[in-house]
């Protein structure tokens, strides 16, 4: 059943709507919410939502509980190929839990949180941005790690990154829900503005696996092929560009690299010169690599878990 959570008028003959699909099983059970599209340039969640809704709708007899799918938290951002909300400065994932008296974006954030609260589990799907390519991973704040890592392991992602707490991250959807005792896992994978079909299918399978663990799916599910690498905060090396230029690499993320191994190089196309060679300072698992080649000093090129 399609439900509208937010509906307001836009200036010229159009409604701004945020909708969800509520699929109820034949028997009562847990409530799982799958949300995505907070950043308008992240599209992997669209295929995941499609596959989930299609498969569950066609196999309702296996569902014991309720699946709620929110494909587009930021429909205007998706439509205009913008990460943020058009005409609004702040990242939508920095304004939760919202404010019913604030701007339209803050009112929207408030309405969404209120709608989701009380779910037994929430999966918030992101897919990096235009600049970085990410190994399929789950990100968990260290303050909620003990509770959430055991759930995350069922998703079949390659990597679980337990990261440090930061004050600015207290305004994310995941943090706001977890504070409200609604468990929320954040998934990151792929790259902005593109869909990687095989990654999406893996996550769909992982979500069914988690649903099985939650006791809300009785259908067959393939066991995850890989056991995730789990990273506790503080042991991730960030490789930032030493110089501005064009970053070239032959490597993909999700690979192991050795100390001093060449990750890529930054070049000057005008002079035909290499400006700097990018080498790994550690041995470990490279779970992020730059996708957009133009870099300024400081641009992130890779993240490596020093395993």
């Amino acid at each position, binding site marked *: 059943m399609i439900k509208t959570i937010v509906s307001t008028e836009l200036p010229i003959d159009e409604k*701004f709507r945020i909708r969800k699909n509520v699929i109820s099983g034949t028997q009562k059970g847990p409530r799982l919410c799958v949300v995505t599209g907070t950043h308008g340039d992240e599209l992997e969640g669209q295929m995941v939502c499609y596959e989930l809704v299609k498969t569950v709708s066609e196999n309702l007899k296996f569902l014991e509980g309720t699946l709620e799918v929110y494909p587009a938290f930021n429909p205007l951002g998706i439509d205009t190929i913008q990460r943020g909300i058009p005409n609004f400065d702040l990242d939508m994932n920095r*304004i939760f839990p919202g404010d019913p008296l604030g701007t339209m974006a803050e*009112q929207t954030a408030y309405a969404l949180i209120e709608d989701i609260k009380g779910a037994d589990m929430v999966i918030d799907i992101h897919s990096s941005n235009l600049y970085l390519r990410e190994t399929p991973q789950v990100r968990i704040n260290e303050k909620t790690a003990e509770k959430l890592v055991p759930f995350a392991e069922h998703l079949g992602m390659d990597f679980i990154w337990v990261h440090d707490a930061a*004050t600015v991250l207290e305004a994310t959807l995941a943090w706001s829900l977890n504070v409200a005792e609604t468990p929320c896992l954040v998934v990151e994978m792929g790259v902005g503005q593109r869909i990687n079909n095989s990654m999406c299918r893996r996550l769909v399978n992982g979500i069914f696996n988690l649903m099985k663990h939650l006791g809300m799916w009785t259908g067959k599910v393939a066991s995850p092929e890989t056991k995730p690498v789990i990273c506790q905060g503080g042991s991730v090396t960030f490789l930032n560009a030493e110089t*501005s230029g064009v970053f070239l690499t032959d490597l993909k993320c999700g690979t192991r690299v050795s100390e001093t191994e060449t990750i890529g190089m930054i070049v000057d196309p005008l002079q035909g010169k290499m400006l700097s060679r990018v080498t790994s300072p550690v041995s470990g698992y490279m779970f992020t690599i730059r996708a957009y080649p133009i*870099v300024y000093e400081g641009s992130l090129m890779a993240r490596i878990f020093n395993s």
Partner: protein
Amino acid sequence: MRVETIFEMTSPYRDSFRIKGFRFGNGEKTLAIAGPMRGDEIQQQYICSQIVRRLTMAEQHGRISEGKSILVIPSCNPFSMNVSRRFWAMDNTDINRMFPGYSQGETTQRIAAAIFSALEGFEYGIQLASYYVPGDFVPHVRMITTGYETLDTAKLFGMKFVSLCKPRPFDTALLNYNWQIWNTKAFSVYAGCTSRIDSTAASETVDAIMRMMQAAKILTKTVTLSPAYEPAVVDESELLHVKASHAGIFYRLKSPGSSIESGDVLAQIIDPYNGQCLSEVKSPADGIVFFAHNQPLVFENGLIFMIRGM
């Protein structure tokens, strides 16, 4: 006046990115003024240029107090202004949400770290700022309440209002917040508008900053400035928010600073197809317009006015 380059970074395809500082006087780090961090803060750029001009004259006339130094950074982000982008063009990040910065981090974190390194340690700090919601303010001094805010100093600007706001999680990466935490008496000055020059508001703002410098004895030998106000202190959580009951064309009738009575019509919202008035936006109370939406279109439930009730 000494001009120095505070930060320089090569660009793959453009001239180098440079942040320049203008230093006046000698001695203790007394006052730092940070100019625009967003590329559309044209009013703020203009005001900074006028402050540099006034301080240059003040220095020539020996009006800078002995043992005190002033730093003005007229632009923290010339690259974005040159290409008409509000944020850092390469990745759309906001330098003013990267403080205190990180010299080994991402590009805008590095820029913020360099700016913060230059601005840190001053007794007073002033940022020419703009708001995250498009609109016009009555010119005022704004302070984040961190426990380190100094209301008495804020009143020295002699602007009509001093506003206080409680920080939200996303505010903890602002320059103003971090400046205060690092023991600078920090103020954001809102100069009416952002992306265009309002010469009246700019002139009032320049005078207010010069007035603060005189009152804090950073400048000697008082010169004539526009009259000071006895500022009203506004707690932003007590501002009355007026929202649009309809979407449509926004026709504003009252501007920031207007005195209004309960029931006064502040704006009309016009049907974009037939020209009929869909709603008259009325003031919920007697007071003063503190903030007003400045775009020609408005969304339903959009925040269009903030009123400071009497």
